[in-house]
């Protein structure tokens, strides 16, 4: 496996009103191999979108990536890049699609224009060639009558079609990595499945790595090779997808599963996780899930490390210490 992305101890901070800094992303590490899909799962406000923005140095102006964080893209140290060098990473090596396809396209240009813009931002091709590439890309993302749709404006397309166009734009310069930030949240369920299928096909065909950011465990199963669960700015559990679904171990992950309705099995009431996600200005000390955790005990006042619980399976919870390692 070729490693394409390595994120180490990523911390992103913002200034608080009182002059101190707070850390919505606080020590996130993960890797991504060629052709692999990693899902980053968590509730709103857990720092997953900010993590993805940091990959391209797109953190909002008042925030900063803390020294000590590393983002290695192949041989490139992304955090040392500036200006033009940074621009050559964006879109060219990491493509990105956003949650809301209704607002992520420029309303005043045709979709063909916008895909061609992505092509020409990075590749030395003529207008005609860019347009031809745009047509091919529309075909690849499964838009019927791609030649005819080149001259369509975003408002003439449905949400699903627009998200396909967004994918085509993100793929225009053939990036090695595609970051999909909640790509299907704004779409109907049936369209969701289609979009995920398109992403999967493109990943296989191009050997691309996909970072799939979502709050929905349901779309992770069968799509992602590995899952990292985020809570309060940290990864709290990481495992290959089948392992995680078979043995969710962190109390937070277990809580997430318990709050998702199941189609098979006995009919039970859903069990929501008590309390709410703390604000990033006030992460609890010790284990950050402690105030909401049904299994908390004294040691949870100390911050836990990621501890092994099974093959390639680790969690940020002291309960792992008392448990035998499954293999």
């Amino acid at each position, binding site marked *: 496996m070729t490693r394409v992305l390595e994120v180490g101890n990523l911390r992103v901070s913002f200034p608080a009103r009182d002059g101190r800094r707070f850390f919505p992303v606080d020590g996130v590490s993960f890797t991504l191999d060629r052709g692999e899909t990693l899902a980053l799962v968590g509730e709103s406000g857990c720092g997953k979108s900010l993590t993805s923005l940091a990959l391209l140095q797109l953190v909002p*102006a008042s925030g900063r990536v803390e020294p000590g964080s590393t983002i290695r893209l192949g041989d490139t140290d992304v955090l040392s890049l500036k200006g033009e060098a940074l621009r*050559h990473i964006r879109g060219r090596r990491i493509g990105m699609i956003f*949650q809301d396809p209704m*607002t*992520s*396209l*420029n*309303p*005043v240009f045709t979709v063909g224009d916008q895909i061609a813009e992505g092509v020409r931002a990075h590749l030395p091709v003529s207008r005609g060639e860019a347009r031809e590439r745009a047509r091919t890309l529309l075909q690849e993302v499964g838009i019927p009558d791609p030649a005819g749709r080149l001259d369509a404006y975003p408002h003439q397309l449905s949400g699903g079609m627009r998200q396909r166009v967004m994918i085509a734009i993100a793929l225009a310069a053939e990036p090695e990595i595609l970051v999909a930030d909640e790509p299907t949240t704004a779409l109907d369920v049936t369209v969701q499945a289609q979009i995920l299928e398109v992403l999967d096909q493109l990943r296989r065909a191009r050997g691309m790595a996909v970072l799939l950011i979502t709050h929905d465990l349901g779309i992770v199963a069968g799509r992602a090779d590995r899952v990292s669960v985020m809570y309060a700015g940290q990864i709290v559990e990481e495992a290959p997808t089948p392992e995680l679904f078979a043995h969710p171990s962190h109390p937070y992950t277990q809580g997430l599963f318990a709050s998702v309705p199941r189609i098979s099995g006995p009919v039970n009431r859903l069990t929501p996780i008590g309390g709410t996600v703390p604000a990033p200005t006030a992460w609890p000390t010790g284990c950050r899930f402690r105030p909401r955790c049904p299994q908390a005990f004294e040691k949870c006042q100390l911050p836990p490390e990621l501890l092994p619980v099974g093959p390639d399976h680790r969690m940020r919870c002291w309960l792992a210490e008392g448990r035998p390692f499954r293999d």
Partner: protein
Amino acid sequence: MRIIGEALQTVWETPRGRAGVMFLGFLVLLALFGPLALPDPARQFDLDELAAVSPSVDHPFGTDQLSRDVLSRVVSGARISLAVAALAVALSVTLGAGVGLIAGYWGGAVDALLMRLVDGALAIPRLFLLMLVLVVPDRVPLLALVLMIGTTGWFATSRLVRAEVLRLREETFVQAAEALGASRRRIILRHLLVNAAGPLLVAATLGVGDVILLESGLSFLGLGVQPPTPSWGGMILDGRAAIEAAPWISIFPGVAIVLTVLATSLVGDALRDAFDPRGA
């Protein structure tokens, strides 16, 4: 630029918008080609008796005290007024868009500095400022007049563009363009400026009316377009002395000013409605 095309279509479809567009179109054609068919505006018809003659078949708008054809002078005045307005508005829209884009895009100290300067400039009454400057030299060349009006007219436009840019910067498509490696220049011109083009066009249209009024006012005060070059404001000044005996000398250029400004307002308002997302 589809939205602009569609907005113009919508303007054409409203009665007031169509009336305004038709009048302005007629005026532009008249300014361009009218002088070819009319007598020289400087020609004095009756050199023996220099006197104003009331409207007749030969002189539909009459003649002025120097026996010059008022119709010729109104048409030539249209040429001057429209040219001054178009150039001055082009200048102020460019300046306003540039400053607004810079302030809105860079933000922070640049934004604060530029906007405080604009606040200061907006606090100075424009007419007094222009009078103060224009009263100094003996003769003001037409180009200098255009420059003066253009460089004092962009403050409100820059605020408008800045507000649009601040709104657009939060739009996902701008973020998406950044994430896909669009250059700063592309983001500013393609994603910010083009999307702000609607309000800018409305401001420019209404600005034409403002400038025509301003120029007429200055010319009436003897500070704008200098005689013998015909201008509407200057003609009203010329006719002022004979307002009771020969009112036509002042009335026709006055009517021209009113109709032109009214037409730009009609078009500007119709444009504003056309760009209004609430679809008024």
